[in-house]
């Protein structure tokens, strides 16, 4: 059984405005699934449907075997969601907000206060614990928003852009907390348009674009699936540059090779990890010395560009 499964899921906000179109999507138990896509791709809509905040127009969605439309209250007992925008109880203090959330979600009283104190310290909210929510900075409010899920520690945790507005140190702390949650057995769904976040957290990535699933696989497989996505920059000491260039271009996996200087080559290859050993073998047989080598793998930005034909951030507003 999947932890999360959607079949033919569609959400329409008006006759022509589709947020999700016939989405089939699964998350395995205890997996970190990252939804990657530009703004307006349907990430938030999918999260809100799974969290039972929005209702699907058609199709079917299940969380831990429970239909989100038929058993919303049961589903809500299993999940926790950190929303994209940290808005809420303006005249409350962070510690009170977390205590309230813990109480409503049934966190045992004996664990609650220690858990909250530790989280406030870890997420660097301790000094702000008695400030009113309306006086928190954007980053503090966002950290408080994700802290709700960490207090609750649900079986299914949903994060919508969990580190937007948060500084790098804060990001690392939030990522560590998310991975700790996974270690404890939670299934995790993260929506983001930050490539680094996706690469750091994901067991698998689902690329969404215009409400449709474009591709879903592990980060490694997605990168490997780009033909010529790896770039190998080489400096080779050889008297016969032309021969070496011809030999390198015949290696299996070479998509394009160019001579970028006297003895410098730039090769676009598929799966550099198997291409490089073949290249060293070829160089050895042709009595060419490798002076330097640098391998750059494609980013998830490149993956997105490859599968959708456009850049991940081009319409980010």
């Amino acid at each position, binding site marked *: 059984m999947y932890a999360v499964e959607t079949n033919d899921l569609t959400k329409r906000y008006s006759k022509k405005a589709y947020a999700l179109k016939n989405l089939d999507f699964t998350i395995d138990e205890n997996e970190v699934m990252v939804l990657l896509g530009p703004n307006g791709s349907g990430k*938030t809509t999918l999260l809100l449907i799974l969290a*039972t*905040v929005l209702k699907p127009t058609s199709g079917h969605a299940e969380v831990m075997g429970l239909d989100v439309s038929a058993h919303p*209250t049961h589903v*809500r007992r299993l999940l926790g969601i950190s929303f994209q*925008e940290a808005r809420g109880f303006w005249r*409350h203090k962070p510690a009170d907000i977390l205590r*309230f959330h813990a109480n409503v979600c049934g966190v045992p009283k004996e664990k609650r206060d220690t858990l909250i104190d530790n989280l406030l310290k870890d997420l660097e909210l301790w000094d702000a614990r008695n400030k009113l929510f309306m006086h928190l900075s954007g980053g503090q409010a966002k950290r408080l928003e994700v802290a709700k899920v960490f207090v609750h520690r649900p079986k299914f945790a949903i994060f919508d852009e969990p580190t937007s507005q948060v500084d790098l140190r804060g990001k690392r702390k939030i990522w560590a907390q998310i991975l700790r949650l996974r270690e404890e057995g939670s299934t995790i769904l993260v929506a983001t348009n930050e490539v680094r976040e996706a690469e750091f957290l994901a067991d698998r990535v689902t690329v969404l674009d215009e409400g449709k699933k474009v591709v879903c696989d592990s980060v490694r497989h997605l990168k490997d699936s780009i033909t010529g996505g790896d770039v190998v920059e080489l400096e080779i000491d050889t008297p016969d540059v032309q021969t070496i260039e011809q030999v390198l271009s015949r290696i299996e996996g070479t998509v394009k090779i160019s001579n970028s200087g006297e003895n410098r080559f730039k090769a676009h290859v598929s799966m550099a990890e198997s291409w490089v050993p073949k290249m060293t073998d070829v160089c050895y047989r042709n009595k060419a010395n490798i002076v330097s080598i640098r391998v750059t793998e494609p980013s998830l930005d490149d993956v997105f560009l490859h599968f959708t034909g456009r850049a991940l951030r081009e319409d980010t507003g």
Partner: protein
Amino acid sequence: MSNIIRLVWFDLKPELKPPVWIIMEWAVFLVQVGVYGAIISQIVDITGLDYRQFFAVGLVIMITFSMASHTGRHFVEHAHEGRLPYLLSLPISRSQLFLTIALQGGTELALMLSVPLTVTLLILGNLSLVSVVACVLALFWLGFGVAGLMLGFSFIAFKSSDLYTAIVTGLSAIIIRFSTVLYPFIVLPSEYATAAAFSPLTYGADLVRSILGFDPKFLLNPYYAAAVLAALAVSTLGLGLVLVQRLVEGVKSA
């Protein structure tokens, strides 16, 4: 049930620390009864009617209306300030959420009415447990009806908050002015009286005044008024509950 009480208390607590707005409302009521009520009762002369007493009850009805409208608006604020998606994601059912809104509105109404109702009963020389309980019940029926009405309108706010504000402001003005809150039915011009028959405040005001022993010739039949209020409360709250259960969705944060 414990989650409902937690949510009500959590939302209400900041408003009571300190309860400035409640004290201000009480002060405004006391000034209105003490100063404006004294003046207007010299101007308005209706044979057989102590207009100051009539006016004091009218103010209590207006406070009830204002608080009940506030409950509807509070729901809209939940949506527009981003709390609604959060509330909808908590492990409580939509019906419990609706009950929470109603309970919070009821608590605020009870707090807000405590002083004005006591003062009004003192002015009328009718401060007793029976009159307090009967008045509170009648006012709550009225409050439920108005809150349900405003909750119904709150769904307009999901499309356009400006339109909602315009409709509610306009409707509030009409509902208060075209009613028997400030003047008895029998002295109203016929067109005005026809319009007043459609205002829920007419039935609330006349029912409370009947309970408090005002001359029946100035009032609608109390059984009729009670039936209209009950029908209004049941229908609008029922409609609100159905809307919350079936239609309400958190405003998608963009």
